[in-house]
């Protein structure tokens, strides 16, 4: 694949390195001449000096044959514009933007950016996972199918402890797919599986039903 990375900061540099190792053709676009030169010295001629939001630079970079463009500058607005120009002028199929402000994640997607990644949100998810007060964790979003895969942990306070799965009123289109219990092999739950304190339940559901699923499973 031909992948263009906009922004030669630390994130761009390590991304390029990893993608080169995987055998992809990579080009970094970076405004700062000195940064550009030090990347070229280290990784070979893979950095082009220029503004990745400018159509002219993107033209020079051969963006119309790129399979993917990843914008990882430090500014949300620059990342948005780089992705939009790549998408609409050069018809790049996949565009990925780094967002600093987590509120921009959804907005960027509405504006046509295929993937918007916020390190704040990612770290927050990890914190939620580490903290026992957060019984629910998002594992994966399948955007095309509008499905969420989540993990719900049953705590001693959950009023569902001791109940059977068939007694729960799960939201529509929600499936409990796996129960992970301490010191036991994961099992696929059936209607007669009884919930216990400490169970980790992996479930598939609709994004709008996530909260309802959580309360059905934990009672809170």
């Amino acid at each position, binding site marked *: 694949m031909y992948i263009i990375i906009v922004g030669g900061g630390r994130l761009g540099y390590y991304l390029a390195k990893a993608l080169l190792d995987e055998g992809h053709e990579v080009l970094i676009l970076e405004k700062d001449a000195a940064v550009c030169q030090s990347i070229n010295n280290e990784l070979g001629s893979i950095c082009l000096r220029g503004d990745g939001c400018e*159509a002219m630079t993107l033209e020079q970079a051969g963006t119309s044959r790129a399979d993917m463009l990843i914008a990882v500058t430090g500014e*949300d607005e620059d990342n948005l514009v780089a992705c939009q*120009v790549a998408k609409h002028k050069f018809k790049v199929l996949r565009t990925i933007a780094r967002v600093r402000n987590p509120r921009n994640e959804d907005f960027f997607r509405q504006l046509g950016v295929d993937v918007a990644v916020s390190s704040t949100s990612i770290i927050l998810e990890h914190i939620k996972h580490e903290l026992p007060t957060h019984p629910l964790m998002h594992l994966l979003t399948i955007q095309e199918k509008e499905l969420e895969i989540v993990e719900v942990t049953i705590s001693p306070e959950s009023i569902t402890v001791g109940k059977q799965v068939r007694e729960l009123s799960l939201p529509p289109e929600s499936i409990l797919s796996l129960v992970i219990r301490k010191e036991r092999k994961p099992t696929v739950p059936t209607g007669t599986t009884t919930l216990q304190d400490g169970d980790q339940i992996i479930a598939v559901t609709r994004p709008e039903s996530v909260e309802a699923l959580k309360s059905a499973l934990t009672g809170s």
Partner: protein
Amino acid sequence: MKVVIMGCGRVGAQLAAMLDKEGHQVTTLDIDAYSFRRLPPEFGGSAIIGNGVDEETLKKVGIEEADAFVAVTQGDNRNVMASQIAKHKFKVPRVICRIYDPLRSDIYSLLGLEAISPTTVFAQMLKEKLEG
């Protein structure tokens, strides 16, 4: 008319002053308080410090009730992003955006933003002067 102007540089300040004089309700927004020195002493609108690419800030300056939003900061991309927030998120009826780079301006015009490139406009004006 209720107008929010993002960027209180020479253009932003002058536009704010003109609209204010005609009796419109004007709010100017800039990340640097020092920029507001450009507003005339009799300016009757409000001047607020904040970043226009942030939804919360835009709400604070009353974007939800605004009839028009104008983005004239020095950064093309900041103007583009703020304008898209105003247009798509807050459904402001009239959104105008300055984009210096003519190519980028063309792209966003195609995407439905009302974009003006001063580069193109001014070069055209100079040419007409020379030919006139």
